[in-house]
C-alpha cells in the first residue's frame, strides 16, 4: 500500500518532534535526584548535577517592568563573575498562561535551575511542581510556598509593610486619615505589605479610609487618588503599594494644591518617585533590592545544583531587605543604583 506523501511528511515531522523532545528531556540526565524537607514538612525534589558538565540556569520575571532591569543587572553580574550563562525571560503580557509556557519551554530545553517570580502562586502549583521534578526551582520576589520550590529569595513583604507603617506613624504623630493605592490587593505581595502597615498603625489613631485598586491602569491610579482626595477632605497621607502608585498619588496631591498638607509614601525606586522625593512631593519610599534578588537567586541555584540543599538556610527564605529612601539619603542611594546598573 502506498502512503500519501502529505501523510508521510506529517508522520515524519511528528516523529522528529517527539524524538527531539525526548532528546531535550534527556538534557538533565546524569543528575541525581534526592529530596529536601527544608522549610516545609513535605519532601521536595532536589537535583544535583555533576560539576563536569556546565549548568544552565534561567530567571523568569512576572512581567516586563523597570524593576526587572535591576534584577537583570544582578543576573548579569553573577554571570560575569562565574562564567555561568543565565537566560533572562520576561512574560510580555504578564499572564499566567504565558509564564507557564516559559516554564515548560525551559524544562524541555534541559535547564538545570529556574528562579521565578510567580504570578499566581495558588494557580500555578501544578506547572511549578511538574518543573520541579526535572530541575531545581526557587522563587524570587513573589513566592509560591505551597509548591515544590526549594526556597524563596526576595523581599519579606510583611517586613516591608512594617517599615512602611513605622514611617507612616513617624509622619503622622497625631494620627489621621490615610488612603492606600495599589494595583491588585489580592496579590500576595500587596496584601502582605498592607498587613504589615495595619499591624504597626494599630493604636496610633491612624485610620485607613480608602483602599483603592487600579489593576495597573495608570490613568485609573491617578483618578482614584484624585477622587479619594475629594471624598476625604481631612486626608493626611496617601500611600502607594505598587511602584507607580506613589508618583501618581503625588501628582494628584499636587494638582489638588495639597502639597505639604497631604503626605505621600511610595514603594520602589521608579525614576519619577525619586524625582518627587527630591522636590519634596513624596516624603519617603520603601525600596527593595531587585539587584540582589537577581544575583542571589542565581548563586543559590548554582549551589543547589552542585551541592544540594547544604547551602540553603533552614528556613528556606533569604531576605534581600528593604530600606527607606527620603531626601536625606537620596543622593547616596542614587549613586548606589547607578553603580548596580553599571555592573551590567
Amino acid at each position, binding site marked *: 500500500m502506498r502512503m500519501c506523501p502529505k501523510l508521510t511528511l506529517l508522520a515524519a515531522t511528528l516523529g522528529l518532534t517527539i524524538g527531539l523532545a525526548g532528546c531535550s528531556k534527556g538534557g538533565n540526565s546524569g543528575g541525581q535526584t534526592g529530596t529536601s524537607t527544608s522549610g516545609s514538612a513535605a519532601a521536595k525534589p532536589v537535583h544535583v548535577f555533576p560539576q563536569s558538565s556546565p549548568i544552565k540556569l534561567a530567571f523568569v520575571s512576572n512581567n516586563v517592568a523597570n524593576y526587572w532591569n535591576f534584577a537583570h543587572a544582578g543576573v548579569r553580574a553573577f554571570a560575569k563573575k562565574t562564567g555561568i550563562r543565565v537566560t533572562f525571560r520576561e512574560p510580555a503580557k504578564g499572564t499566567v498562561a504565558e509564564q507557564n509556557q516559559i516554564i515548560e519551554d525551559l524544562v524541555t530545553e534541559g535547564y538545570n535551575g529556574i528562579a521565578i517570580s510567580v504570578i499566581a502562586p495558588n494557580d500555578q502549583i501544578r506547572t511549578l511542581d511538574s518543573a520541579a521534578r526535572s530541575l531545581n526551582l526557587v522563587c524570587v520576589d513573589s513566592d509560591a510556598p505551597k509548591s515544590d520550590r526549594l526556597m524563596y529569595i526576595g523581599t519579606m513583604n510583611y517586613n516591608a509593610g512594617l517599615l512602611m507603617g513605622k514611617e507612616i506613624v513617624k509622619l503622622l504623630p497625631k494620627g489621621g486619615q490615610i488612603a492606600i493605592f495599589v494595583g491588585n490587593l489580592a496579590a500576595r505581595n500587596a496584601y502582605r505589605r498592607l498587613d504589615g502597615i495595619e499591624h504597626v498603625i494599630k493604636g496610633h489613631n491612624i485610620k485607613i479610609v480608602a483602599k483603592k485598586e487600579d489593576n495597573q491602569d495608570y490613568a485609573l491610579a*491617578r483618578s482614584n487618588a484624585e477622587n479619594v482626595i475629594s471624598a476625604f477632605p481631612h486626608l493626611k497621607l496617601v500611600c502607594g503599594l505598587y511602584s507607580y502608585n506613589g508618583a501618581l498619588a503625588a501628582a494628584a496631591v499636587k494638582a489638588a494644591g495639597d502639597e505639604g498638607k497631604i503626605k505621600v509614601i511610595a514603594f520602589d525606586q521608579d525614576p519619577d518617585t525619586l524625582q518627587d522625593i527630591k522636590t519634596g512631593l513624596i516624603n519617603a519610599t520603601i525600596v527593595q533590592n531587585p539587584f540582589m534578588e537577581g544575583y542571589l537567586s542565581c548563586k543559590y541555584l548554582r549551589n543547589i545544583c552542585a551541592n544540594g540543599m547544604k547551602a540553603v538556610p533552614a528556613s528556606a527564605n533569604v531576605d534581600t531587605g528593604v530600606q527607606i529612601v527620603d531626601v536625606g539619603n537620596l543622593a547616596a542611594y542614587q549613586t548606589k543604583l547607578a553603580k548596580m546598573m553599571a555592573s551590567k
Partner: protein
Amino acid sequence: MRRELGIFCAVVVMCGFLFWSNHDFGNAGNILNLSRQAAMLGIFAIGSSFVIITGGIDLSVGGIIGLTGVLIAKISSPSIHCLHYPLWMGIGIAMAVALLIGLCQGLLISKLKLPPFIVTLAGMLLWRGLAQIITHGGTLGLGTSPLINLSTEGLFRYGYHSVLAYPVLMFIGVIILAGYLLHATVFGRYVFAIGGNRDAARYSGIPVDRVETLTYVISAGLAGVAGICYASYIGQMTYLVGNGYELNAIAAAVIGGVSLRGGEGSVLGAIIGSIMLELIQNGIILFKWVYHVAGQRKVFTISSNWTYFITGAVILLAVLIDQLASNFNERKRLRRQAQVIAAKQEGGKTAAGAG
C-alpha cells in the same frame, strides 16, 4: 434626542443623589477633576462614535492612545532613554503616526473589505506591541517636560484649580468640530446613511469607501489627541496605558445612544455617555450613607470591586431601554400606519356608498 435626554436626566439624578449622600461631591476640586476625566474619555469616545455609526468598530483606540503617549515621551522627554527633541516635534510625529494608522486601517477595511473587528483587533495588538518595543517593556517618564502641565493648567482659576483645564478645552473644541461634521454637513449625513443601509448608500452614489476610511482616520486622530492628554495626566508612559480603553469608548457611545447596529447616534450622546461612565467611577468612591445602629454612627460605602458590575449593569440597562424605546416607537408607527390605512379604507367605502 429623546434618548440623550433620558440619559442626561439619569446623570442629573445621579449627581443629585451623590451630592445628597456626600456634600464633598459638589466641591470645586471634585467637579473639575470629574470634568477633566470625562473630557479625556469623551475625546476618543466621540471618535469611536463616528465609526460605530457607520456600522463599524474600532478596537485599536486604546493601542493608539498608548503608542501616541509613548512616542511623545520617547521623542521629546528630557528624561533618560529619551531623545530630548522639542515637544512640538514629539506631538507632531505622534499625531501624524496616529492619523496614518487610521488611514491604513480604514483603507484595509473599506478597500480590501476586511472585517473591521479583525483589522482593528490586529491594530490593537500591533500598536501596543510597538509601544512595548519602544519602551523596552519599561516606563518612559515625561520628567520636567512642559507637557506635564497640560492636564492641570488651563483658563480661569478658582482657588488652586483651573476651571477649564486644557483637556476640557480640547474636548470642547472636539465637540464643536465633531458636532458640526456629524450633524451639519453632507459628510455627516453620509455617515448615518452608510450605517443605516450600506448597499442603499452605495447605490445612491455615496462614496462609501472614502467616508468609511475617513471615520477611521477621525477615530485614530482623536485617540491620538486623547493620548496627548493621558501622557500629560499620567506623566509616565508604559505600553499598558490605554489598555482596555477601546471598550470604555464603546461603552460611553452605547450608553449615550449610539447604536452598535449603525445609523443612529449623536455627539451629544457620546458626551453624556462619557460623563456617566466617569460619574460611576467617581460616585463609587464618593458615595457615603451615614446611619445609626444603637446610637452608634456607621458609614456605608461602596467597594471598588463593584465598579465593573455597576458599569456593566448601566450599559445593559441603556441597551435595554434603547431596544424597548425602539420597539415602542415601531409599534406606535405601525399602529398609526394601520389607522391611516383604515381611515383611507373607511373613506373609500363612504365615498362608494355615497356614489
